[in-house]
Structures are given as structure tokens and as C-alpha cells.
């Protein structure tokens, strides 16, 4: 028998906490109108952007916490002790020698390239990818693709981005989208012209710097008619964190016949609140696919959504959540059908280990006046020991006899006999668990680009290794 007591979890794993190093621009601690003005000032923003920020700030002040939602743990966020803006670090004071061995080992095991390791460990403020990036930039420019940060995007291309900025996710959507709208910095702004099909995925990686991986990233991707883009966000290495609140907003706009695939693999340390709003708008015959993998964090709340605005639009969310001891993954998907013949597909897999907790929160809306809409939702939960918790809250509002929904949910456990069988073949308990978890998510991982699936598998191995005593 695998008794819960046999499974020991290292609570400190992933808690990479360093003192903040010195930055040239620092908005100080706590949030106020002045802080918002300071951020906007540093960025030299136009008045309309400052107004946008200030309005969002006042919404944030008024909006209650989403208490009807996830966990009471949200109440533990102390907005007064958070730094809302840090930028352009001077040389960080930490050296590679000061990075703890276990972090170095983790990088080693994950096969993270040397340069990136230094950045991730906070040894270097800047990840030097100029060479790779400038080559790519040239190619992109030829095609007319814009790929810049949020500040540059709003400053240099307002005619393109202003129209959609804050439209898919209004500041007032929830308290955290309001917060992000007030203090956002970093993230990617991308525009793909009509008919341009990008063969290579774009990655935030190419433009990695301290700001880009900031707490309040803002991303807006516009795929013009008939264009195609895959975007990859995040990285699988456990990122060194000085901040405990991450609240990004990601807006996607897929115009007629466009295709957007947005891939996230995140591995947060145990002290991070990861409260992200992600939503896409899909016009006629457009396709949007969110691939979302969440590992780690203290609390993740994330429900990527697609508003299917045009006929025959298609939305998809494929997600994997892994909650270890002391972690809560509250994830899901929102599919809002707003035109006939639209289809949506949600496949969510969660793994709860130790006292880890996973919840699935889904929303599917199909109003009665629409015809021939389809939704398929599958949520599968895997519990690694009896203390694990899992909940599903599928909210399906479907009307109209011409529409169809299919919903399946399953909860499974690894049995002692399965572990014994795998051990009898030579695998130790952690390897056995890891293989099992990989099997559980296998059909989803197959949908991922190759390099991501390999990294994800390694990440699962590492996670399981630490969680089985």
C-alpha cells in the first residue's frame, strides 16, 4: 500500500526567494494613483494610456475580491507590500556562485542553456538573445509582422493596437484585470498581417528581459484575416521570484479565417499567486487554441476563454494542471458561443499530489437563438494520494434544440497494484508515479510542439521525484 505518510513533500522546493536587487526605476511599495502616474511617466506614455491606467486603478479600488470564486487564500494577498514596478536593473548583486546548488541542479536536469540559467537565477538582468532575435526580427519585418513589447506597441503602433487594447478583456472584467490594466508593463504586442502564416512559433523568449517576465505582463495578439501564428509563453524552468503576485492579461484577436495557437508552460515557485486573465475573440471561421500547462504556484486562477463571435469559429482549450502539496490550481475554460455553427472543445487534465488541490471551473454559453453550435468538454482528474482534492464546477448554459454539448468528467487514482507492477519492472516509486502521470496526460501532450512536450515530461519527472519519499 502507498500510505500518505510515506509520501514526503519538500515544502521548500521551488521557493527561490532572494532579496530584490537594485533597480534604476522602482515605484516603491504599495499602490496609489501616484504609483500609476509614476509608471506611466517612466514609460513616457501618451495621455490616453495614462487615462486608461487611472480608470483601471479606480475600478481596482472599488472592485471586491472574487470571493464567490476560488479560495479564501486570495484574502491573504497584501496589496500594500507589493512592488508594482521595477525596471532596468543595474547589475544584480548576486553571482552564480551564490545560487543554491539545488537550483543549479534543477537547471542542469532540465537542460536549460547556460545563458538562460543565469538570467533565470537572477544573476543576469538581461538574457542576451540579441543575435537570435535580430535575425528573426528581420524576417518578421519583411512579412510586415510587428512583434514588440507593450510599451513600444502602444507608443509606435497605436493605429493598430489601440482598437483592440482592453477590448477583449475590459479593465472591469475582474479585480485582477483591473490591477493589470493600471500597472501593466512588459508582455508582447503582436500583429500578423492578412494572409501571413508564420511557420515558426514566436516566443517571448526571444525578447526576454527583466520586464518581460514581470508581474503584470500585458499581451495582445492580433491575427489579421487568414493569417496564422503560434505563440509560446513562459518557460519550464522554475523561475526565481522576488514577487509573489503575478497578474497578467492576455488578449487575442483572430480575425476572419485566422488561426492563433497560444501555448503556456508555467512552473511557478510555491509562494506565487498566479492570477491571470486570458481571453480570445474569434471572428468568422477563425480558430483559437489555448494550450495551458500550470505547474506549481501557491494559487493559480486561470480560465482561458474564447468568444466565438463569427460563424463557424472554433475555440479550444487544452490544459494540464499539476498541484503539489501546498498548491491550489483553480483552472478551467470559458467558451462563449455568440454565432451559429461555432464549435468549442475543452480538455482539462489535472493531477493532485500530496495535499495539492485542483479545481476545474468551466463555463459554456450557447444562447437559444443560435443553431448548430457544439461543445465538447472533458475533465479528468488524477489523485496521487488520498489527501488530494479535486472539484469540478462545470457551468453549462445551453439553450436551443439545434445545439449540442457533451460533457465528461472522470476522477482516477493510482492504485497500489499499479505501482507494484511498475516497481516489479524495476522503476522506483518516483519513476513509477512519473510514468503514470505522463501516461495520464499523454494524449494531450501529443498535441504540443515537440520541444515543449519533451520539456514538460522532464518537468513531470522532476516534480514526481520531489514528491515521493
Amino acid at each position: 500500500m502507498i500510505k500518505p505518510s510515506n509520501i514526503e513533500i519538500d515544502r521548500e522546493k521551488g521557493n527561490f526567494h532572494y532579496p530584490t536587487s537594485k533597480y534604476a526605476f522602482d515605484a516603491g511599495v504599495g499602490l496609489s494613483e501616484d504609483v500609476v502616474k509614476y509608471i506611466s511617466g517612466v514609460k513616457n506614455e501618451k495621455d490616453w494610456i495614462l487615462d486608461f491606467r487611472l480608470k483601471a486603478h479606480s475600478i481596482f479600488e472599488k472592485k471586491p475580491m472574487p470571493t464567490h470564486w476560488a479560495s479564501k487564500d486570495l484574502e491573504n494577498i497584501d496589496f500594500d507590500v507589493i512592488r508594482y514596478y521595477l525596471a532596468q536593473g543595474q547589475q544584480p548583486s548576486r553571482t552564480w556562485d551564490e545560487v543554491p546548488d539545488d537550483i543549479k541542479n534543477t537547471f542542469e536536469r532540465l537542460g536549460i542553456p547556460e545563458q538562460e540559467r543565469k538570467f533565470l537565477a537572477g544573476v543576469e538582468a538581461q538574457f542576451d538573445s540579441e543575435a537570435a532575435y535580430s535575425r528573426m526580427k528581420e524576417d518578421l519585418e519583411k512579412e510586415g509582422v510587428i512583434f514588440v513589447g507593450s510599451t513600444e506597441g502602444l507608443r509606435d503602433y497605436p493605429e493598430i493596437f489601440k482598437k483592440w487594447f482592453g477590448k477583449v478583456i475590459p479593465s472591469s472584467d475582474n479585480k485582477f484585470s483591473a490591477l493589470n490594466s493600471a500597472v501593466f508593463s512588459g508582455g508582447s504586442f503582436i500583429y500578423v498581417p492578412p494572409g501571413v502564416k508564420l511557420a515558426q512559433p514566436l516566443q517571448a523568449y526571444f525578447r526576454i528581459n527583466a520586464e518581460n517576465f514581470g508581474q503584470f505582463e500585458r499581451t495582445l495578439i492580433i491575427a489579421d484575416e487568414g493569417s496564422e501564428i503560434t505563440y509560446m509563453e513562459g518557460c519550464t524552468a522554475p523561475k526565481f521570484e522576488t514577487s509573489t503576485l503575478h497578474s497578467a492579461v492576455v488578449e487575442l484577436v483572430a480575425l476572419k479565417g485566422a488561426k492563433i495557437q497560444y501555448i503556456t508552460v508555467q512552473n511557478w515557485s510555491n509562494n506565487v499567486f498566479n492570477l491571470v486573465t486570458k481571453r480570445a475573440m474569434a471572428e468568422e471561421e477563425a480558430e483559437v487554441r489555448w494550450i495551458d500547462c500550470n505547474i506549481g504556484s501557491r494559487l493559480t486562477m486561470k480560465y482561458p476563454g474564447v468568444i466565438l463571435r463569427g460563424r463557424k469559429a472554433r475555440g479550444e482549450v487544452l490544459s494540464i494542471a499539476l498541484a503539489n502539496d501546498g498548491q491550489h490550481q483553480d483552472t478551467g475554460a470559458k467558451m462563449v458561443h455568440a454565432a451559429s455553427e461555432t464549435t468549442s472543445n475543452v480538455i482539462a487534465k489535472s493531477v493532485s499530489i500530496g495535499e495539492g488541490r485542483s479545481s476545474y471551473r468551466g463555463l459554456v454559453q450557447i444562447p437559444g437563438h443560435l443553431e448548430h453550435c457544439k461543445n465538447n468538454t472533458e475533465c479528468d482528474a488524477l489523485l496521487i494520494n488520498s489527501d488530494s482534492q479535486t472539484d469540478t464546477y462545470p457551468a453549462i448554459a445551453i439553450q436551443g434544440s439545434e445545439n449540442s454539448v457533451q460533457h465528461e468528467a472522470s476522477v482516477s487514482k493510482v492504485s497500489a497494484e499499479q505501482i507494484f507492477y511498475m516497481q516489479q519492472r524495476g522503476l522506483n516509486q518516483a519513476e513509477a508515479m512519473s510514468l503514470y502521470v505522463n501516461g495520464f496526460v499523454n494524449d494531450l501532450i501529443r498535441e504540443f510542439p515537440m520541444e515543449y512536450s519533451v520539456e514538460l515530461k522532464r518537468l513531470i519527472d522532476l516534480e514526481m521525484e520531489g514528491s515521493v519519499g
Partner: protein
Amino acid sequence: MSTLQIDNLSASVGKEQILNNLNFTLPKGEVHAIMGPNGSGKSTLSKVLAGHPDYQVTGGNACMDGTELLGLNPDEIARLGLFLAFQYPVEVPGVSIANFIRAAVKSRLPEGESIKAVEFYKELYLKMDDLGMDRSFTSRSMNEGFSGGEKKRCEILQMSMLNPKYCILDETDSGLDIDALRVVSEGINQMKNPDRGILVITHYQRLLDYIVPDKVHVMWEGRIVRSGDKTLALELEDKGYDWIKEEVAAA
């Protein structure tokens, strides 16, 4: 020392004593068979040797080539070279046969060494051909939705890929059709060699027509109560177990 040697082994599950002072020796290079009525403790013996955590060992020893097995983790025992073909193989959803066996082979390699994929697949395919398994099986999830016979073949496939020192085959013949019985038996016979001991647990003499045992043992109430050569199996087939039970009761 080149033996799997069990001395006075007693084991229980919960309050129930299942193995009682069991003695048994399997030398390398030999094939032994254990027969015995349902519930006499044959599967329990194999699981205790493999380190199953449900069973408490209450006495005795089990040494494999001089190494005490009792008290080791199941995976340590496996890597030392004991292979158990399960009476009821377990499903591992989503993990393909190829990936499963790869993981098992890899667990035996020294740290840092990796499997050579081309050679691995070559060997795997060759062995699947021998066992009459379609190559498309490599991508199917381990034992998931397999027929009884397919599961048993898959056990033998794993056994031959992992190159164990001692093999225990728990009713590998049950659930096989006549042709499969022959194919699987050939697979087992190919595994026979001077450096390997094989123990087959079976209810039927017909398996022993293919895999001729050096010795046959009868298990009853958690002990080996009689041992003999292959003719003992024929005798059992003919007379059943009652005469042995009576002898034991009289003694």
C-alpha cells in the same frame, strides 16, 4: 550460491497466515514447477518474493544468489534480477508498451547512460515477432483492453527484454488458446539457460509438455508438501490433490 533459496518462509496478510515455514530451492539452469489447489498460497509466494508491501513476512529467509530479498523494495528486487510474470497483469493507462519497457530497461542502466533507441526497437520487434505479437502493439497502452492471452504474451515480452536471473511465471498458461500456449511456451523455453532459474506456477500438465520441468513441487496450505520429477505432474493430473491432502493430514 547460484540459487534462489527459500528457508522456513512464513508470511501473512492481515491476521491470516498464508505461508507456513516454506522451503524451496531453485538452482540456476533449472526449470521448476509449482502446482497446488486454489488458494494454497502460490501467488502469495511469488508476491512475497517480489516484495509486495501487502504481505508481512513473519519468519524465514529468501536469498537470491546469496542476497537477502526480504525487506528490500520491489524495484530493488526487480533490478537484482527477479522477474515476476503476473497472474493478473495490471493496466497502466496511457503508457505504451514501448515506453513502459523502455522505462524498465532504463531503470537498470547506470546513471547518465541512455538507451540506444534503434537497437532497442530492433530487439523489441524481434521478440514481438517471436511471440506472434503484431508490431502495432508497441503503441498500445500497457495491458489496457488487452485480451487475456495478449496480456500473458506481453508479460513474456517484458521478461525477455529485461533479461532476469530468475523468473517466476504465475499461471502464464491460463487464458491462452492452444496455439498461443505453444508460442508462449517456446518463448519461455528460449529463456532457458545455465545462468537463469525459471519457476512456473501452473494448474495444468499440458504446459509441462512444452516446458519440461526438472522438478515439480506441490503446494498446500502455504507449504511445499511434496516434490518430485515431471512424472509427479502426470500423477496429479490423473489423481487430483486429495491423496496428497490426506497424506499431509495423516503426517
